[in-house]
């Protein structure tokens, strides 16, 4: 094994450990009795073992409803977002005179300038009437300029010869996009979809702004309320004796868990491509 490969194993392994260990401690902490946590702090092994926090979280319908709302936001949001983003990113990456450049500037400006919360709030609640609709959470972040440009930079890597030969065959732009560009772009589509999914999954702020019906609170808003609210964690268990530390940690596990399961699906696409470059040498 070459030195660089060895270094890579060690480096990536260390980073992986640094990422895993705190998460493991969150997991262990979420299963440790409250009194041990607040007195001794965190440890690697749950002792004394307690599932009180999970019992508190999953009792009642609240968290289950929240999973439903979050799932809807993530699935619908990601589908809309990937569609809108790829379309725009392709047009920008086409390098058409005026149009592409204009669109690039047009998409970049919102990264710099924003009208602030109040106009957005008035727009969504009063002009669009989206109050208490899950689309109020999806639409304001359905195109992220950042990801548009990430995708543009990938689209530009598609070999021009392929496109030109299609053009010579008389294919229109739509056909080129759907039959050539998209199939060639699976890795980046997977990445973009993953990033959007994560964004939608993690978003609590737009839900805070626009959702007042607690039956359709997404998961992250429930978590946010729980760990930022003084009396909140008690509310969950009712009697005023809920494990505060433990619940914060257990909610973290509950919100990370499902999206981590989704990660390998996206990974499949770019790992396949990855092996090509990696198996050489």
């Amino acid at each position: 094994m070459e030195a660089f490969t060895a270094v890579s194993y060690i480096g990536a392994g260390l980073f992986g450990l640094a990422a895993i260990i705190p998460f493991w401690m969150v997991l262990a902490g979420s299963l440790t009795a409250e009194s041990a946590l607040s007195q001794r702090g965190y440890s690697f092994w749950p002792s004394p073992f307690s599932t009180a926090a999970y019992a508190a979280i999953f009792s009642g319908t609240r968290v289950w409803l929240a999973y439903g709302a979050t799932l809807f936001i993530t699935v619908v949001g990601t589908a809309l977002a990937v569609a809108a983003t790829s379309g725009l990113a392709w047009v920008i990456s086409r390098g058409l005179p005026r149009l592409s450049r204009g669109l690039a500037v047009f998409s970049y400006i919102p990264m710099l300038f924003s009208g602030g919360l109040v106009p957005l709030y008035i727009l969504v609640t009063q002009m669009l009437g989206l109050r208490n609709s899950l689309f109020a959470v999806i639409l304001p972040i359905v195109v992220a300029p950042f990801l548009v440009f990430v995708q543009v930079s990938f689209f530009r890597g598609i070999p021009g010869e392929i496109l030109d030969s299609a053009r010579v065959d008389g294919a229109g732009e739509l056909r080129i996009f759907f039959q050539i560009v998209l199939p060639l772009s699976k890795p980046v589509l997977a990445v973009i979809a993953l990033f959007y999914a994560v964004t939608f999954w993690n978003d609590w702020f737009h839900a805070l702004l626009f959702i007042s019906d607690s039956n359709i609170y997404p998961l992250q808003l429930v978590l946010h309320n729980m760990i930022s609210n003084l009396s909140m964690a008690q509310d969950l268990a009712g009697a005023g004796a809920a494990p505060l530390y433990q619940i914060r940690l257990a909610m973290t596990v509950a919100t990370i868990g499902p999206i981590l399961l989704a990660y390998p699906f996206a990974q499949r696409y770019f790992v396949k491509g990855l092996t090509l470059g990696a198996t050489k040498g």
Partner: protein
Amino acid sequence: MAAINDAGLSRRSFLLGTAGLGTVGALAACGNGGAGGDSTSGGSLSLLLPGDVPPGWDRVLGAVNEKLEADLGFTIAPEFIAWSNYASQSLLKFTAGEDFDTALSARWLNIAQLVESEAIIGLDHAFASGDYPELQATIAQDAFDANRWPDGTVYGLPAVNSAARLHHYTVRADLVDTYAGGSIDSFDQLEQFWYDVHQGEGIPGFVRGGASPWLVLGGPTGVFFPEGWENPSVIPVFFSSDSLFFVPAADAASTGSSDLVPFWEHQPYVDALRRVRQYYEDGIINADMLNIDTATAKGQFTSGGAASVWAITDGTSTSAHLQELTAAVPGASLMNVMPFADGLAARPSQTFQADNMVVLNASGSDNARALQVLDWVSKQENHDLLQYGIEGTDWELVDGDRYRQIGEYANFPGYALSWRVDRERKAADMSDSEDELFTWSQDYSNFERDTFASFIPDLGPVETEHSQITAAIAEFGLPLWAGAKDVDSGLDELKRAMETAGYEKVLEELRTQADAYLAEQA
């Protein structure tokens, strides 16, 4: 090219996505009425409440609305906003001109701005009209008047459950038995107790999350403020409680001159700062006061990790801690230590300005109905239903008039709607010492009305300086309140920052307004 085979699928999903984006507008139209609890649906009054939805809320709200419908002919649809977002979100809703009807506000929230923008309505006329008898019967005229704005109008109904708000201590009674012979009657005894517990048990005497000026710069009592035990008469004056505190002259009422000075020129305050610094260095208080939150500190106390915590006279000290504490530390018990050398013979000064007020939105759907609701919740049975839930299911009466929680329903934020001094029930597990202090604190006649009782300064002329001062206090003041910084150098830094921010102009303005207030009172 093999990849083209997949194109059909990609295309279909792409078009679906695009079409979806287009039809969102149509869906959006349904979104509004789709979910229950919206502000305008079905003759329902929208109320903004801080905190989170109480467990069992739908059931209790159902019962409340059934009764409301029968009594008044309409219902309510409260909306809960998490505490950490409440200030910004409620202001946003006011700013956007939304038509909710009531909200919680206060000087430590953004009532000043709401008044300036005429976003909330004056309540004097309604309060005096006689149309809302229950409201009038349960809110003392004194308490109402103490919240009068410089323009002569009252904008917020006090939602308080005691007359006086006195900072004091909730202490582990079992440790007091062991280390202090069963009772603490002076600050010296308390300090000795803290040191002994630290020595004997290896835990801090006092734990707290988040530094607050009230701990050190008492008004009139504080946690580390021995002066307050002897002479609970000094209440600082300020534009907002997170900015700079000024101390008025003791004889301001008779001379007609406020002679305000910044807090660092009031010697007892500086002494208290030195004291808290000493505690920090000796391990008597937790060292992470600046960076942990209230819930974390509470967890440390209830798991037996400290001998005392901060308390205020709102009757919730015992019930907030006891159950968790006894679960973690079998045999532990609690008591509230009153911060007076003279016991309850002390006559502390009070402004009676409410920490929590209910305000009525000028753009609300129906202000008269909002007042009807406030009147309705002032009735004992309605008050009980909203705050404690359904009797027999959620709570039961014990010892005559106390309540014991038996169901899931808890933590309704009554301080944003229904807290009334005469209507509060005491929790069955309230300690005798808290009971004594709480009951005493509910009687307005036990207190001296402060010289600046209803003085609410207008910060309009010094807005810029005020913002800068507020930022600088957080930077240079909070570490001092927490004892985390050397007092001499820390105060020097603070003063320099205050000078840069223009505190002299603020002081000048405040003096002018305070003197004008005194002249008006005389």
